[in-house]
């Protein structure tokens, strides 16, 4: 084996890659937010997403 370090490094990368695919890991995307009101399902308009989308538009809670 001419490249033992590369073999170990590549194997580790593949292992992490497989584990990431298995667990659905990703670097980007929405992050979980805790503390949402329990009444959303009964009254969905009572809470607005904290994610602001339309520029210049107030998206705070109603």
């Amino acid at each position: 084996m001419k490249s033992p370090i590369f073999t170990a490094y590549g194997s580790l990368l593949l292992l992490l890659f497989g584990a990431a695919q298995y667990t659905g890991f990703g670097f980007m995307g929405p992050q979980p937010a805790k503390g949402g009101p329990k009444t959303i399902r009964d009254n969905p308009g009572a809470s607005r997403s904290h994610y602001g989308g339309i520029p210049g538009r107030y998206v705070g809670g109603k």
Partner: protein
Amino acid sequence: MPAQSTVKTRAITCPNCGGTVQLRGFAHTLSVTCSSCRTVLDTSSGEASILARAQKQMKVQPLIPLGWRGTFDGVPFEAIGFEQRYIQADGETFCWQEYVLFHPYKGFRYLSEYNGHWNFISPTVALPQKIIYVHYEHGVYKPFQKAVARTGFVIGEFPWRVCIGETVHMVDYIDPPYILSSESNSNETTWSVGRYVTSDEIWKAFKLPGEPPKASGVYANQPNPHAGKPGASFKLFGLFFALALAILIFFSMTHKSTPVFTGSYKFDPTAQTDQSAVSQPFELTGSHTSAVHIESRAAVNQNWVYLAIALVNVDTNESYDFSEMLSYYSGVDGGESWSEGSANQGTTVHRVPPGRYYIRIDPDREKEAGESALLAGRPIEYKVAVFQGATNVGLFFIVILLLLPPPIIAWWRYKRFETQRWSESDMSGGGE
């Protein structure tokens, strides 16, 4: 450690100083240096005659004492002669040392040393064939260097009539770890082949005391310590690439292609009531986290809608909030049709634990400046679909990028060594 003499040597008397001079090379020795007065003697006729008067130049101390024996390829050779030769190039003088080794049955071999780089040299057994490169036995030798070499200092015995200031035209060809050298004078051309040996091997062969001097720089036929590594690394990279692709394909095939939830909704921008909607709860199955892909599609031909979406866990109320802007406009301008935007978008939420979830959607659409109320108030139908187990293709490219440096570094180290080697060459066409 002086060598144990097993063969009787012949002795002659120096005609210059009367000192006794031993001949270890028997009749093969054609010239010898008197160890007392350093006069070079011609011994070819049986009687010693003076070939050159005592050397006036600086005395050079051989690293291997004459009379010591070293074993190469299982054969014990005795160091019987030493010379220092030099070439002049670019206004500089470059010196190297050569040792004459002798074995009564195997004959003469030579050692050369330059800056801690050694070569074990044998006469060639056949005449090398020259076309562009030089072919000798199974090797193809690239031309490396040509120079005029002069003898500067001699001591001991030589199988030729050695002269101080003797000049030869030499050409070196390399096929590491071998070097093929031709030396020509007005009468003849001789060829020899050298094999690179390390200082440690020399010290071990002669059982020399102390540490050998460290080699500096890269020598012409020094084996590249990185040879073979770039090829092996790129092969390994190819293997890892194929394995990563296989992993990606495997997970793509095992992920469910049918959504765990689909919902259709209608948004009326003119309605005074709240247009937010929630889905029925659905199950994300499994025993581990998974990526969840949420696709949105809206009937937005020449229109747009903004959807604030949240994936909410029924039990913990933990939510993943994101938004989609769905818009699609098209037309014809100057005879050319155009379109922009897309009526469907998708977002992947990573590492979502299994459990019961629902989707909350908050649509929005504002009347734009100059837009008629009729256009701005058109109802918009939209759909949302949730898929469990999305494949992360981006990670595949990150893995490939992280796999690239090792083979590139291996190639760069190999090339750097070769660049150093060929920077010493004065012959074009040989560089790699």
